[in-house]
């Protein structure tokens, strides 16, 4: 231990043997700060030198401000010819300046990258006049256009790019109204048989024989989807049939407004069948707006209550096969219908009958047999013939190199 103590005392520096140390970290920091200060100062000097040496870019020319066509009058298209300084890459951005009077004052409203020669100003009001100038900004400063472009945003009454759609819509409405008037004369009209719709009554009959319920799913979209409206129209007829056969009906819905309307439809159906007392308010129930939670609830109804007939009519998405396959597993007779093209194959595979696209919209009229509704179906058929003719003519003209017809039919 003494040896160790002696060694320690020998190795440990005493105050007398210590040399004064330089504060190296502090000095290094100071040096770094000095270098940085010098760098910044040099850079500022260099920039000033560049600005002094490099001239401001040439201003853009040919500034125009045109009203955007077919809009509400809340946009002006500003365009200009690129600054000559773009050839030497001396333009960084273009600034767009606007004023309410030709003499100004002009204020910057937007800027775009070099190479751009147009910009739409969507902050204008219809009926007011605006004046524009464009400035090319580069390292050497700003080159402001000498000319001033005036623009007057105007609201258009008609979107001319939709003329073809407008004419076809008018023609279609004329056909439908014509056939509705024709139907009111009392003359009978032939409507082809739709097996999928006929199968609905068969399915309800089967449920009645088995003493089990009918499940009606009106799609998973809200009332703003016309498929849901069409489905609710069919629901009334289905409810009427179930009331007539004294078969329970279950209608799970996934939007509150659809729920309220579905209640009305089912109630109307029971009243129309002369059995308002048999209407069970709990037969129509709100479940949830969440897609897969809704599927879980409906599949649960299928597996627990074992309805003998499942009717899926409306808008469906990824849940179509989840519902239809579960229904298939419960051995229910299934009728589906949707205008969602991507979901049709799933229904075709898993269901006994499928209403394809337009058949869903025709079902209400087909089931009600009301002449005016059937008249509208005939109008649609005639319009289909016209559209086929238009497609054939368009193909022939396009093949012959004539683009005018295709351009007329194109919309924005």
């Amino acid at each position: 231990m003494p040896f160790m103590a002696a060694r320690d005392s020998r190795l440990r520096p005493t105050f007398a043997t210590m040399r004064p140390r330089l504060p190296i970290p502090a000095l290094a920091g100071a040096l770094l700060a000095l270098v940085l200060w010098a760098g910044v100062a040099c850079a500022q000097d260099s920039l000033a030198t560049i600005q002094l040496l490099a001239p401001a870019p040439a201003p853009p020319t040919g500034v125009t401000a045109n009203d955007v066509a077919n809009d509400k009058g809340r946009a002006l298209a500003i365009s200009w010819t690129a600054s000559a300084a773009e050839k030497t890459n001396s333009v960084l951005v273009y600034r767009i300046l606007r004023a309410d009077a030709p003499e100004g004052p002009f204020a910057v409203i937007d800027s775009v990258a070099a190479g751009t020669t147009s910009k739409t100003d969507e902050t204008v009001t219809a009926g007011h006049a605006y004046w524009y100038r464009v400035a090319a900004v580069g390292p050497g400063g700003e080159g402001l256009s000498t000319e001033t472009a005036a623009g007057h945003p105007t609201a258009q009454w008609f979107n001319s790019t939709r003329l073809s759609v407008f004419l076809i819509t008018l023609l279609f409405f004329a056909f439908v109204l014509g056939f509705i008037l024709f139907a009111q004369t009392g003359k009978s009209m032939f409507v082809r048989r739709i097996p999928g719709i006929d199968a609905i009554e068969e399915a309800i009959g089967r449920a009645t024989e088995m003493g089990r319920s009918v499940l009606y799913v009106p799609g998973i979209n809200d009332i703003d989807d016309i498929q849901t409206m069409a489905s609710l129209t069919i629901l009334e007829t289905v409810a009427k049939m179930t009331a007539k056969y004294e078969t329970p009906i279950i209608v799970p819905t996934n939007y509150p407004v659809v729920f309220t309307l579905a209640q009305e439809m089912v109630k109307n159906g029971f009243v129309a069948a002369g059995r308002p007392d048999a209407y069970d308010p709990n037969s129509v129930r709100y479940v949830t707006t969440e897609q897969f939670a809704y599927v879980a609830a409906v599949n649960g109804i299928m597996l627990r209550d074992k309805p003998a007939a499942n009717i899926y009519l409306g808008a469906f998405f990824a849940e179509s096969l989840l519902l239809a396959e579960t229904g298939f597993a419960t051995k229910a007779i299934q009728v589906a219908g949707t205008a969602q093209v991507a979901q049709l194959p799933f229904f075709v595979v898993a269901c006994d009958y499928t209403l394809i696209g337009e058949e869903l919209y025709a079902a209400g009229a087909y089931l009600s047999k009301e002449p005016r509704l059937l008249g509208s179906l005939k109008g649609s058929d005639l319009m289909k013939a016209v559209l086929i003719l238009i497609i054939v003519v368009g193909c022939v003209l396009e093949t012959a190199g004539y683009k005018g017809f295709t351009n007329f039919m194109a919309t924005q």
Partner: protein
Amino acid sequence: MSFFKQHLPVWLTAIIGVLTILSFFMPHPLIADPAETLQNWAIVIVASGYVLGAANVLKVNGEDVARRRTNWPYKIVLLASMIGMMIIGFFMSGGTHFLDAGTKFTWAYNNLYVPMQATMFALLAFFIASAAFRAFRIRTIDAGLLAIAALIVMIGRVPIGQWLTKDLPEPWQLPVWASWLLEWPQNAAKRGIAIGAGLGVMATGLRIILGIERNYMREDKS
């Protein structure tokens, strides 16, 4: 009363329907702005409907629990979950910011509901397999054509399809056949259905606007 119950809804439907159609063709603010406002009103009306929905869930399932109907314990779970989420959302997640990241409501949604949702969605894989098995059983000429087309598309869209026919001239390669099937016959059929459905939409809309189809109204049929 007859006017308010029978005529006013039809007239309102007709006016709003025509205005909405016109706004597609006429961009002028006098037409487009009211149509846009009406669409915003629809959002507000739909939002207020959720109170009805929640009340119905409570009523239907509460009755089942009270009367000990079949499967009533499940309804307790449903009601407890619903009320629990409402309490978390209203009182424990920063008021109106309950949907912000990091709130208890968001945590419960992301960690309870989202996995359950994913589970339901995952079931689709098994259902597709079982549905495909039935669909590709060749019983008729139609089913046979479907099976052949499906086989070409499925094999043609995976690397093994490319490998199998890579030595053949290009027109005989499976990926080329698969692309042709998807781009031509499949697209033609899809567009045909879409055009038919579009006309159906227009016809239904016109029937509603004209008041021919007004099942949305409760009519006195007794």
